[in-house]
């Protein structure tokens, strides 16, 4: 399962890049100390993304900002701080409350590192950052306007929080508003709007505090359990002229090492696992980096235990065609269950306690929680609760397990592994067998839609960048998720509207690796943030979006049908409020309107392969494309 060019290498590269930045900036800081004049901004050439940007083309490449004898804008200093954080991109929907910072990003920084991504809605901006962070292994910067931009972005911020994903958000506001517009866009405590679902927020009242808070926020965002952070920045502060002599020192970014579980507790966990007759491993949001993926394989194979990634909660921390993938088969009754970054083990723990079985939790969730949003699940009285990041704890757990494996236990493990492998092979065969039903029918079956895709991307280095909440397990069964980046996880908070912008953000991260990104998104999801199609087209983000178009919020249709039936008041109108038809929406025309290549509606399976081929040719050439597939509900 070795992965030559993967997220781990990328992450290492990013860390080295960041270290380089640190060194470079330190040297720069020394130079500043010797000669109190800030370095002149670089002049950069237009990037590919700029080629379509008329405003940029008219203004030409960035020219040096005239340095006033008094100093330069504080927002230039803020950009220098942000450069320490190694942001490649900043997603924005423009707002006057961060116009100072916006101008500095364009003209002082030359729209490089970070490069601006123009979003047409703040929810799309934050959701792009959410998807990007999971694929890139580091956060994206997002800037929003006071109150209104913040509220627009808050939904996606909540999803990132629930998914334990870092997003770095800056909200601009006028602390001393005077006009009818600025007054409602200011707040005495802007952070309170989203405080329930960010790990850290601060109002930065001086440049020095901005620098320290930015570095602290980044550190907190990246320390497991990871999560979004927020800085509120006054518009006047951004526009203040900062004399060179008053320019504060920018501290170095110190990356925290993730917390590891207590060694005695880890030893006890290993003892339980090795002694167990039928252990099971349940990874959820384990793979912060590809190292977590490798370690999970190592532990599973050392124990020859099944590895069940669950339905929606994981970041797919185990290869889906691996013989140990799954729950071990119908007859497998676990006597020791190890949850790794599993947010709710309460039901498992209760059931285990009634039958003498053991449960173990290794999770950073034990270290930190807010109290308002109930995403922390119910209280779980597991037998062993180890507070620590699972990925960071796995090396010591694996080492302890290996120490305890005797030749006798190894023999038992080998036999167990063979049984599990057979069960997985049979289960996979049954799934593939089920894919044949309705194979040639119209609307197109979901497995046909996915199998046809799999055939077209077989020789690509691909990544599915959307979730799989509404396509069941078909993705995992019909596509071989054999690399950590093949799957990017679901939305986190079970809120619709993440998949499309999240796919665009993740595709941007994969673009740097030359990977082919595919998002399979519902028509319901696409309608939340269709403007992100323009963002993908404008910034030339290669991505194939397949619209799983079933013309309804189908999960809700079924739920309302059940409600109607339970109350005995008629089922014939259960679709009202959930169907998206009469008129049906043309997503192909929608994509074209946003400047994206598109085809559809594709109603017959015989037309799928050719449509995929044409669209993938565009994507491989560096453009986004959309295929509207009229598909069965599930």
């Amino acid at each position, binding site marked *: 399962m070795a992965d030559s060019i993967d997220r781990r290498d990328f992450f290492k590269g990013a860390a080295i890049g960041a270290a380089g930045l640190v060194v470079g900036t330190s040297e720069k800081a020394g130079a500043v100390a010797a000669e109190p004049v800030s370095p002149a901004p670089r002049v950069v050439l237009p990037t590919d993304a700029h080629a379509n940007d008329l405003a940029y083309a008219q203004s030409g490449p960035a020219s040096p900002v005239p340095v006033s004898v008094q100093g330069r804008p504080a927002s230039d200093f803020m950009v220098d701080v942000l450069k320490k954080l190694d942001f490649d991109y900043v997603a924005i929907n423009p707002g006057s409350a961060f116009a100072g910072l916006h101008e500095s990003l364009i003209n002082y920084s030359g729209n490089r590192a970070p490069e601006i991504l123009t979003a047409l809605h703040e929810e799309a901006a934050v959701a792009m950052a959410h998807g990007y962070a999971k694929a890139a292994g580091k956060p994206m910067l997002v800037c929003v306007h006071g109150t209104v931009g913040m509220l627009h972005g808050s939904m996606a911020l909540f999803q990132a929080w629930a998914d334990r994903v870092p997003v770095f958000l800056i909200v601009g506001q006028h602390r001393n508003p005077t006009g009818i517009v600025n007054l409602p866009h200011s707040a005495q405590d802007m952070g309170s709007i989203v405080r329930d679902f960010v790990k850290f927020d601060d109002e930065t009242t001086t440049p020095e505090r901005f620098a320290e808070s930015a570095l602290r926020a980044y550190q907190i965002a990246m320390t497991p359990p990871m999560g979004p952070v927020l800085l509120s920045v006054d518009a006047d502060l951004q526009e203040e002229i900062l004399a060179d002599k008053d320019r504060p020192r920018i501290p170095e970014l110190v990356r925290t090492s993730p917390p590891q579980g207590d060694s005695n507790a880890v030893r006890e966990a290993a003892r339980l696992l090795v002694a167990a007759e039928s252990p099971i491993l349940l990874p959820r949001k384990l793979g912060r980096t590809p190292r977590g993926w490798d370690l999970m394989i190592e532990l599973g194979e050392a124990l020859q235990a099944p590895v069940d990634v669950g339905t929606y909660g994981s970041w797919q921390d185990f290869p889906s*065609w691996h013989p140990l993938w799954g729950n071990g088969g119908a007859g497998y009754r676990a006597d020791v269950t190890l949850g790794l970054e599993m947010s709710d083990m309460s039901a498992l723990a209760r059931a285990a306690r009634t039958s003498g079985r053991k449960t173990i939790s290794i999770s950073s969730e034990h270290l930190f929680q807010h109290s308002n949003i109930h995403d922390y699940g119910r209280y779980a009285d597991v037998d062993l609760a180890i507070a620590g990041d699972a990925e960071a704890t796995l090396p010591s757990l694996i080492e302890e397990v290996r120490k305890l494996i005797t030749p006798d236990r190894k023999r038992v493990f080998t036999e167990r592994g063979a049984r599990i*492998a057979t069960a997985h092979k049979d289960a996979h065969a*049954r799934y593939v067998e089920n894919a044949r039903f309705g194979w040639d*029918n119209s609307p197109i079956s979901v497995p046909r839609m996915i199998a*046809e895709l799999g055939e077209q991307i077989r020789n690509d280095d691909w990544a599915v960048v959307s979730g799989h909440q509404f396509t069941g397990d078909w993705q995992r069964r019909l596509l071989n998720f054999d690399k950590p980046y093949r799957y990017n996880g679901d939305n986190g908070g079970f809120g619709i509207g993440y998949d499309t912008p999240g796919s665009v953000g993740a595709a941007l991260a994969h673009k740097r690796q030359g990977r082919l990104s595919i998002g399979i998104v519902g028509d319901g999801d696409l309608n939340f943030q269709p403007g992100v199609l323009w963002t993908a087209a404008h910034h030339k983000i290669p991505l194939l979006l397949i619209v799983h178009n079933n013309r309804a919020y189908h999960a809700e249709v079924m739920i309302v049908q*059940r409600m109607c*039936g339970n109350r005995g008041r008629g089922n014939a109108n259960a679709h009202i409020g959930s169907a998206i038809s009469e008129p049906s929406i043309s997503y192909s025309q929608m994509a074209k309107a946003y400047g994206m290549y598109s085809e559809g509606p594709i109603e017959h399976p015989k037309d799928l392969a050719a449509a995929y081929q044409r669209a993938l040719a565009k994507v491989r050439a560096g453009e986004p494309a959309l295929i509207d597939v009229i598909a069965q509900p599930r």
Partner: protein
Amino acid sequence: MKSAFVVIVVVLATVPALMAQTPAPPPATGDAKRGQELFEKTYRCYACHGYDGQTGSPRLVPMMRAQDAFVAYVRKPSTAGMPKFVDPPEKDLIDVYAYIRSIPLAAPQADSIPLLKGIIDRRAKSN
């Protein structure tokens, strides 16, 4: 939504075994054409079972219940995921039944479908 999905998966897994053990029921007596209209547009049975009655879950094709048993089940289902259809006239349910019985099973053998055979072969080679 998650709990509903789990129920659906469990039912999906058990249906083929039931089908294998049950003989084909007597012919339907209803109006299949009218039943299709009811299936797709009035009661929207397709939401769970697919437009063709075989791509959703549980699969309805081939229908192994007898007509009376079908009507009784739809009115008072024994599985949590299935909505109760208490008030539709019996004629409607009989017509829906007739439509379901009229749907041909569109399920070629998996190993006769090159795409699926390719997946089976690659899965076998991957381990």
